[in-house]
């Protein structure tokens, strides 16, 4: 098992360098000059332009800028945002807990509902429940996020008044957030009602963000289950007279899990991308909105730094998924 983990880790290294290069190149390949954009309709004189270029280090040759970036990474320095003039890493870390909290809630919701739904649909293949569930999943998968979120806000927040429209916690509360995770910080704050407020603010964004992964997981679980349910060993288990719950839950589900875990792992990338829209609509102070703003402003340092961290997170998740395969299926370990 250790060798398996190590071999996976080795493949991580070239990917990492690839990511640094891509993240560096991506934003620079987009047309648009950050200094021009900053000046807007106000013209910059050529002298002033040269001065700013030198100050921001854009006058260096590209390879030099890349190596500066690379050296910075190994010293834990992702540079300074051109817009806010603050370290990119600080900016990212201030916002990331909000995204992470929302993503975890969404993935938990998607898994908790998606897997049982998929299993039940597979077991009841072709029956009403299966068809209803799969239609719902298709609708969920195809739902435009923006429209879906606004619909929920209009019904549950403006209409029924059950949930707040947006934000992470009621503005009434004002306490330190040492962990950045509002659920934890609000519980620790000792303010009465703060935790409830944080939960109520999480409900709608979690539902919105979970919608697509939920649909994917349910569909994937169903098809994987159907495949496994047709296998000989499942028939044998049934023939032995084992309880249906035991057959489906233990024998079948465990073997159906591999593709499902893959999908869950891949969903992490989807979640971080989906977070951009969800965060914008719900005024959720996470990295999605920040990345979009940074791209529009051609904030080179922020975009390359942000992309790198996100890419590394997605890579780590997929590495974990790879290792999990090994744990679930010994055959993969030996390959």
């Amino acid at each position: 098992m250790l060798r398996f983990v190590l071999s996976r880790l080795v493949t991580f290294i070239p990917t990492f360098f690839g990511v640094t290069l891509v993240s560096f190149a991506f934003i620079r390949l987009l047309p648009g000059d950050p200094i021009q954009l900053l000046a807007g309709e106000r013209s910059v004189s050529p002298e002033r332009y040269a001065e700013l270029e030198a100050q921001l280090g854009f006058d260096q040759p590209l390879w030099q800028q890349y190596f500066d970036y690379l050296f910075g990474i190994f010293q834990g320095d992702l540079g300074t945002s051109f817009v806010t003039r603050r370290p990119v890493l600080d900016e990212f870390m201030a916002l990331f807990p909000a995204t992470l909290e929302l993503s975890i809630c969404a993935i938990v919701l998607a898994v908790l509902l998606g897997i049982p739904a998929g299993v039940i649909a597979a077991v009841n293949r072709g029956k009403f429940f299966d068809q209803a569930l799969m239609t719902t999943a298709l609708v969920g998968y195809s739902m435009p996020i923006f429209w879906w979120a606004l619909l929920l806000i209009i019904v549950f927040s403006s209409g029924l008044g059950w949930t707040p429209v947006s934000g992470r916690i009621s503005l009434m509360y004002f306490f330190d957030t040492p962990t950045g995770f509002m659920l934890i910080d609000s519980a620790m704050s000792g303010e009465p009602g703060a935790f409830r407020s944080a939960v109520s603010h999480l409900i709608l964004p979690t539902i919105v963000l979970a919608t697509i992964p939920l649909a994917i997981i349910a569909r994937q679980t169903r098809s994987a289950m159907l495949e496994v349910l047709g296998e000989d060993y499942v028939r044998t288990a049934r023939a032995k007279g084992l309880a249906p719950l035991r057959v489906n839950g233990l024998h079948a589900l465990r073997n159906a899990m591999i593709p499902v875990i893959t999908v869950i792992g891949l969903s992490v990338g989807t979640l971080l991308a989906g977070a951009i829209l969800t965060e914008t609509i719900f005024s959720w102070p996470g990295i999605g909105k920040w990345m979009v703003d940074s791209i529009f402003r051609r904030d080179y340092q922020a975009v390359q730094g942000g992309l790198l961290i996100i890419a590394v997170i997605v890579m780590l998740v997929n590495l974990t998924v790879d290792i999990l395969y090994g744990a679930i299926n010994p055959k993969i370990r030996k390959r």
Partner: protein
Amino acid sequence: MTLLRTTLAAGAAVLALSAGASAQTLIYCSEGSPEGFDPALYTAGTTFDASSRQVYNKLVEFERGTTEIVPGLAESWEVSEDGTQYTFKLREGVTFHSNDQFEPSREFNADDVIFSFDRQGNEENPYNGYSGGTWEYFNAMSMPDLIESIEKVDEYTVRFNLTRPEAPFIANMAMDFASILSKEYADQLQEAGTPEMLNQAPIGTGPFEFVGYQKDAVIRYQANEDYWKGAAPIDNLVFAITPDASVRYQKLQAGECHVMPYPNPADLDAMESDESVNLMSQEGLNVGYLAYNTQVAPFDKVEVRKALNMAIDKQAIIDVVFQGAGTAAKNPIPPTIWSYNDAVEDDEYDPEAAQAMLEEAGVSDLSMEIWAMPVQRPYNPNARRMAELLQEDFAQIGVNAEIVSYEWGEYLERSKDMDRQGAVLLGWTGDNGDPDNFLAVLLGCDAVGGSNRAQWCHEPFDELIQQAKTTSDQEERTQLYEEAQVVFKEQAPWATIAHSVVFEPIRPEVQDYKIDPFGGHIFYGVSLAE
């Protein structure tokens, strides 16, 4: 489910409370996050809303809701005969805010004024390079060339020596970059090795004290009890950062905020008839225009430019492109700026006369380019659509127009080119409410090859605006600018298209809110009805 329901109900109750507690809290659903809190470092209105417009004062200020200059931290000022010396008499007894780290030991004085400007222009100043400062506005308003020195005459008198007479200087002193910071606070932070706190925990003399900021979520302020103009009627001011315009409207309806900026044009109809919303509106401090290249034939002929201007159906543009949130422009400055010449008559929309005029000028089979900006701006929410309408209008008089566009940075750069083919759609939002900021910046001879996209250098016009720049008498300046607008209209270097109309939906309980012509959001003087 019971638990969930209780949670939801509690959440709703908490919100209701936060909207109408006994200490008056005004919640503003702002559209974005400030870049920082030192206004001189930045150029974005969102940043000024969060910093200079609540926390700081300037030597002179704009009377709320107007572009008129009134005393601020300077009680009065004098201009020397030759117009190169501005002497400000400072207000006594003004105190700076305090926070956990800082308690002011003295009142505001000349040292604070000198520090606030010196750090922007003097490379020796320890704060010159802090937070990667490039002092964009200080440079954009030509302060390094203009200010020769700043003298402390005594504790409460400061003199600015200028390199040349420049009447708009006083309006520049009311701009956000001219906010006055505490030198004592800056020195203390410098000593503690944390100068960047100046940009993160602002200390000013303004109506609101900064309390805290959670990035991308919320900014909190409390009223400055000792404010020299008297404490604000509200006790607390909260910015709830809400990037999506539809969501801001939902929050306004739900009572989760009192004031919101930048509504969706599509929501305006609903807001008009919504009882929970009071929809305010005013022309913005901007102009959207089509600049011909007056140095390239046949656009060097006044008749050709006039003829094209007469072919433009502005009302159609207002209806389609602005969806009603704009007004047709006849002058190069917006009506909210002093000296706006309302007597100027706009070119009549008359395609037939336009076509005849073109023929008279000996121009036939004219082909041209129309440049459409790739971005949305207040003065032009959809340049591509506007260009299409212009294309149709021009086709009616037999002019064949092709629409071109470039990436925004590229667009701005290429449109400066003096040999540029084609007419450029662009616009301008005013900085300091001075007519010079439009007329000289966009149409002066010095700006040819730069922000004068029409490449238009017309001596009679330039003489008027140069004279107005060096005259400090307001009435005289007004006359000169009024005259300049007449010359502009005759010469038609641009087709003036529109001024946007700014809409601000507020809750009915918000009292005395005024739309700021500069597009800012100012909450001093605003109160909430019980």
